[in-house]
Each structure stands twice: as C-alpha cells, then as structure tokens.
C-alpha cells in the first residue's frame, strides 16, 4: 500500500515539475518552425524563479478572492495531476474522481479565474472573463461527449479503468475513438488558449482571451497562474494520451514497468508537443465569433463518435 502511495506521489510531483518543461518544449518547437532560435527549453523555469522572487503588487480594490484564486487554480491542476493516469493506472487516489468530476475540477479553476478577473473591475479583465466563459461553456459539453465514447467502450467513467481496458485488451480498432480524438484535439486547443481560438504569445489587448484574465497579476500570483496554465496544458495532453494512445502506461505496483512507462511518457510528450507546435504554426487564429462554430464542430464530432460506436460495435 505504501509503495502505491509512493508511486502516486511520484507521478504527481513528476507532472507538476514537468509542466513548465513541456510548455518550453512547445515554445521551442514553435520557434524552430518559425526560423527563430527560441528561448531554450528551461525558459519557463527561469521565468517562474524570477517571478517567485519579486514582490507582489495588488490593486487597491482587490478582495480576498483575487489573492486566493492563484492558489485555488493551482490546487485544482495539482489534483488533476493526481487523478490522471500518467505513469500507472489503478493508483490509490484515482477512484476519487472519474472523468466527469475531472471536467468539474477544470471548471472550478476556470470559474475562480473568471471571478478574480472581474473582481478587479478593469475593462480588459471583465472582457477576458466573458470571452473565457463563452469558450468554456461551449467546450465543456464537447469534452464530456468526447469522454463518453471511451467510457462506453470500457463500461466505466473512471479514467484508470478506461486506460486499463484500452491498453491491455487485444488490439481492436474503434472507429468511434477516431472521431473522439479529433474532437478532443479541438477542445484541447480551445481550452488551453492555443492558436485557432487564442494566441498564447499575444499581448494585443483586443484579441487576447487568456492573457486578459491574468493581466493584473504579478510576482508569485502570476507565477502560480502561469504554472497552473502549463499544468493544464500538460493535463489535457496526458488525458489525450491516456485515452487514445494508452500503450506503455504501467499497471500499479509494477516496478520495472514504471521505467518503461516513464520513457514512453517522455517520448509521447515530445511527439505531442512537436505536433502541437506544428499545428499552431500551420493554422491562423479564428475570429472570436467563429469560436462557437469551431467548438460546435468539436461537439458534433464527439456525438458522431458516439453514434458510429453504437452503430458499428454496439449491436455486435
């Protein structure tokens, strides 16, 4: 039992520490694709260290909510890191929340972030919060529908069980999962402020969504918010990997398999990060009014995934 808890802790710490590296890797790949040298893989860590050493500045009217939000959001993402099976399935904390609760945890972090942005009362914060909620309320049902296809296949909504079923059953092609994967990719881009919906590198006031929410934060608060954003990107990526390419994830308490799992995870993340950078380089940002269309498309693809699963495999 204590070994299982140890693996659980190791997994969470690994994910939390790896998150800035993954963000750095995506940025580095983007820089290479744009013929720039790039800031280096470790740049996010340097930024975090610098921010933690600075003195925080707060607006006069900032309430308790504004100060608490970075901790709440960071806490939500760390909790997600505990639940998502990144290295091993069947860990002690994983039964605590299934995929639906996981969507709820993400929503909790987002709601507090929007509230904090509105709390200060600046125009940009409010605008950003409204836009963020617009994207979120469309992305959330799509994300839930994406989860239902693998849940139907494995007869469970627990991520750990889903991974277990998909990774260790004899290999079967599920056409429904292909639809779900595309829908999930679209939701991932929208939820993490990536390029077709929002540009993570922009500070142009009129187009930004995610940056507008964090405009008033400084020092340790900003560091936590940034770190939480990195964690969220990594969390979504690892959910995607767990659902659609689960091979390599170890069963709990299998010592040698854990090292294989770690190597598999790093390899998969490297490929996923490069692919994300390529996708972002190739596509252009959508107008904000096209965002509902983009997300409606994701929702419909997820529904189609469910339907094809029922048609092709449900009857058999």
């Amino acid at each position: 039992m204590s070994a299982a808890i140890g693996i659980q802790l190791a997994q969470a710490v690994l994910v939390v520490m790896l998150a800035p590296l993954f963000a750095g890797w995506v940025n580095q790949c983007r820089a290479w694709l744009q013929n720039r040298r790039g800031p280096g893989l470790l740049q996010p860590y340097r930024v975090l260290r610098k921010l933690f050493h600075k003195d925080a500045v707060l607006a006069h009217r900032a309430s308790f909510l504004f100060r608490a939000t970075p901790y709440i959001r960071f806490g939500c993402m760390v909790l997600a890191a505990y639940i998502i099976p990144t290295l091993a399935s069947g860990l002690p904390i994983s039964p605590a929340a299934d995929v639906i609760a996981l969507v709820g945890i993400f929503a909790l972090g987002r709601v507090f972030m929007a509230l904090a942005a509105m709390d200060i009362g600046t125009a940009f914060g409010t605008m950003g919060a409204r836009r963020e909620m617009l994207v979120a309320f469309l992305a959330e049902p799509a994300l839930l529908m994406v989860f239902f296809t693998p849940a139907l296949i494995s007869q469970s909504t627990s991520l750990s069980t889903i991974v277990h079923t998909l990774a260790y059953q004899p290999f079967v092609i599920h056409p429904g999962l292909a639809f779900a994967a595309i829908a999930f990719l679209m939701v991932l881009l929208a939820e993490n402020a990536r390029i077709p919906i929002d540009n993570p590198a922009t500070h142009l006031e009129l187009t930004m969504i995610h940056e507008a929410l964090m405009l008033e934060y400084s020092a340790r608060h900003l560091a936590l918010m940034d770190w939480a954003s990195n964690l969220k990107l990594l969390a979504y990526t690892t959910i995607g990997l767990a659902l659609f390419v689960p091979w390599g994830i170890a069963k709990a308490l299998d010592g040698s398999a854990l090292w294989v799992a770690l190597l598999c995870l790093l390899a998969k993340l490297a490929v996923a990060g490069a692919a994300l950078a390529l996708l972002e380089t190739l596509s252009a940002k959508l107008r904000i009014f096209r965002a509902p269309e983009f997300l409606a498309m994701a929702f419909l693809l997820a529904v189609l995934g469910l339907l094809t699963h029922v048609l092709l495999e449900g009857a058999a």
Partner: protein
Amino acid sequence: MSAALATQLINLFASLLLLIAFAMLAQRRVLSLIYLFAWQGAVLAINTSLVAFVTGQHHLYYSALLTLVLKVILLPWILHRLIDKLNVRWDVETLVNIPTTMLIGVVLVIIGFNVAMPIAHLSETVTRGTLGIALACVLLSFMMMITRRKAVPQVIGFLAMENGLFFAATSATYGMPLVVELGVALDVLVGTFIFGIFTFHLREAFDSLDIEHIEKLKER
C-alpha cells in the same frame, strides 16, 4: 492480415467517409471542397479494395480502380480547371448557416443509422454495419446540394452523393455488376461535363453562378 482486422479497417475507413462528408458540409472554400472530394474518392477506393480482399470478390478490384482513376484524378482535375476558368476559388454561400447545417447533419445521420439498422440485420455481408454510414453519406451530400447556393458546390454535392450510393451498394451487396458500374461512371463523367458547360452559360447569361437566377427564366 486477418479477416477480423480487415473488417475493423473497413469500419474505420467507413467512418472516415462520414467524417469527410461532414467536412464537406462545413467547408466554405470551393478549392478545399474539391480536395475533400478527391480524398473521399481515395478512401472509397481503399475501402472497396479492402472489401474485395476480405470477400474474394475480384470484380470489386476493378471498381476500386475505376473509382481511383475517375474520382480521385479525373473529376477533381476537371473541377479544378472549371473553377480556375470561372475564377471562383474561394466563396461558397450557404442558405443556412454552417453550425445549423451541421446540427441538421447529425439528425440526418441518426435517421440514416436508424433506417439502415433493420436492413443491415437482413444482410449477410461482413460490411453490413457500414450500410448506415453509407446512407448517412448520401443524405449529407443531398443536404449539401440543397443548402448551397452556387453551381459548383452543388455539382460536388451531386458527385459526393454518387460516392455514397456506390459505397451503399458495396456494403449491402458487395457492389453492383461491373456493367452497371461502368455505366454509372460514364454517366457521372458526362454529367460533370454538362454541368461545366451549364455553369459557363449560367455565368454568361447572368454574370453570376447563383442558381436562384434561373427562376427568372420564364416565357412571357
């Protein structure tokens, strides 16, 4: 390659066909529409040859080859030349906005699946599960013809519908006799030529490709 894996691959490619049908429905640009049509033909050709491999029906290889030559190379090339000459690479106007079209599309898919389910139970083929997808593809292309205002996307909708019908024939009864298929292929080819000439005349007469203008053609 075992038969079970091949059947799963057939199902996967069938789902890809449905995906491409949806992508066509959502597409705003004529040029991308033509590329999507070519991709649909390619997926159809792969799928048909897979069915031929699983069932040992050799005439399906010829159908796959016919699909490849006609729908992946020849027809997209003709359409490409057509839009180059008409200079309509970008704009597609839809009668219904695209998210609504997609919603109606999902309803059509549900109808298609439901209608095909009892028919599929009667059939003995390995591909019977995909009949619903074929029917949905036909309905989706049909709706694309209805919701598009310009002539060229309507032609592509027509051709995509033929793709869907071809796929339905393959999945329900392992394809039509080769003579019928050749006849249909020729019809489609001739149809595309006629549509091409028709669009030129349309533009000469009205200086636009909007087929609503045809309603003005009345004898006085």
